């Protein structure tokens, strides 16, 4: 267990830039080392937040899909939503949460397509709710990279 994993990864990223990069044999290698350091910085961010992001989103996606299901004309889609909502993530491992997220996001894409051109009040409301989710979805994944 590495409880402070993100700090550890960020430390390695810093060492790459401070200690290894000045010893790089050429500009190409130095640039690669900078990229690797940036990548590690992003991995550190994800290490710290991934479970929180995926668990929070799972809850929100379940709520949106649950609300949408009754309005979907496509019976096949309704059934797939119902089947997905009956399940839970296999564990809190990031890989299991990601697999769960992928399933729910695919359903969200279908639901969004079904509501976005519908002028009914419930559809406008749901479309707004989906866009609020998508804006948050993008901002939760934002990387703080200084480039």
């Amino acid at each position, binding site marked *: 267990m590495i409880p402070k994993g993100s700090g550890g990864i960020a430390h390695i990223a810093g060492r790459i830039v401070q200690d290894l990069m000045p010893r790089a044999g050429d500009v190409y290698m130095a*640039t*690669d080392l900078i*990229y690797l350091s940036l990548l590690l910085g992003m991995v550190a961010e994800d290490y710290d937040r991934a479970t929180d992001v995926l668990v929070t989103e799972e809850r929100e996606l379940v709520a949106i899909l649950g609300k949408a299901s009754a309005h979907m004309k496509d019976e096949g889609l309704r059934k797939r939503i119902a089947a997905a909502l009956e399940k839970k993530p296999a564990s809190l491992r990031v890989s299991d949460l990601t697999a769960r997220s*992928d399933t729910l996001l695919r359903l969200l*894409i279908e639901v969004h397509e079904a509501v976005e051109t519908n002028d009914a009040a419930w559809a406008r409301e749901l479309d707004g709710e989906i866009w609020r989710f*998508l804006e948050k979805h993008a901002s939760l994944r934002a990387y703080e990279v200084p480039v």
Partner: protein
Amino acid sequence: MDIRQEQLQAGLARFLGAKWRPGTTVMDLVHIPGGASRETWRFMAAAGDESLGMVVRIDPETSLIDTDRRTEYRAIEAAYHSGLPAPEPLYLEQDVQWLGRPFSITAEIPGCQSSPDAFPSQHRQAIGEQKWTWLGKLAALDPKTLHLDDVMPAATVETCASEQLAYWAKVIVDDELHPNPIAHAAIRWLKRNLPPPAQKLSLVHGDYRTGNFLYSPAGKIEAILDWEMAHIGDPLEDLAWSMDPLWCWKEPQRAGLLLPHAEAIRIWEQASGLRVDKHAFRWWQVFAAVKGIGIWISSSEEFETSANKKPILAIAGWLMTDREQRILADYLSPHSAHRFVRP
């Protein structure tokens, strides 16, 4: 010098000895960083009293953008012979006997750089004026006179937008490792809101942005680079791509970190003789972000599934996808605060 460099140096010397000057020697071979689609090296070729700086672009075993080197080379030729700043094209070689992979060689443009981080502040305005003037001049060219029909698919003013959309939508569907609901919403928006026919067809550079041109210390643009996504299409495509917020992330109000957006458009209109239709331009702005996601998703897929583990592929795939998603949400969400400039 490592084995790769030694082999490359010997192969280039053999090739140039056969094609350029007998007895050519190759010196000062330097691997240029940054490029994800081709392996790029700078070197000096010398024979007798003559020497010439050159740049060789070698096909990768895998690439971020799957393009035909012939298309890129011919686009550079067309631009160069039309008086646009482009590196002088010297050789296109498909035979793998020389370097093990196909390659092209252009003349080096010495003493320049491409990094937006190094823009001399006193030359920003001038560089910006040149950037959109040259793009306007490219837009004004008649593509029929460029004789690119054999390397670029025919396009029409009515269908060029939908064809580009179909291409990049397929890339996203084929290459996405995880679902991208924002990109899919944007693709559907683009399908529902196709722009009016293009004012004209032009040679579209396809990746015209800050970072893809060389400028001198005096602030003169000396060469436009990276023509690998060139095609015939709507010139607004290049204009929208050149002004994508991704290229001015730190200063969203300054297109390409150079000029206010309205000024860039005014300069482009003046140089091209074309007008920017707001509806059409908005469509191309959204398209630019979708195309960006297509490129970055491909890059992630490449990093994940191929033997190519260049860190630039992962950086592009993770960081750029993140930013392009935020751009699209900003453009399309009904709740958006519209942080990014729209004309």
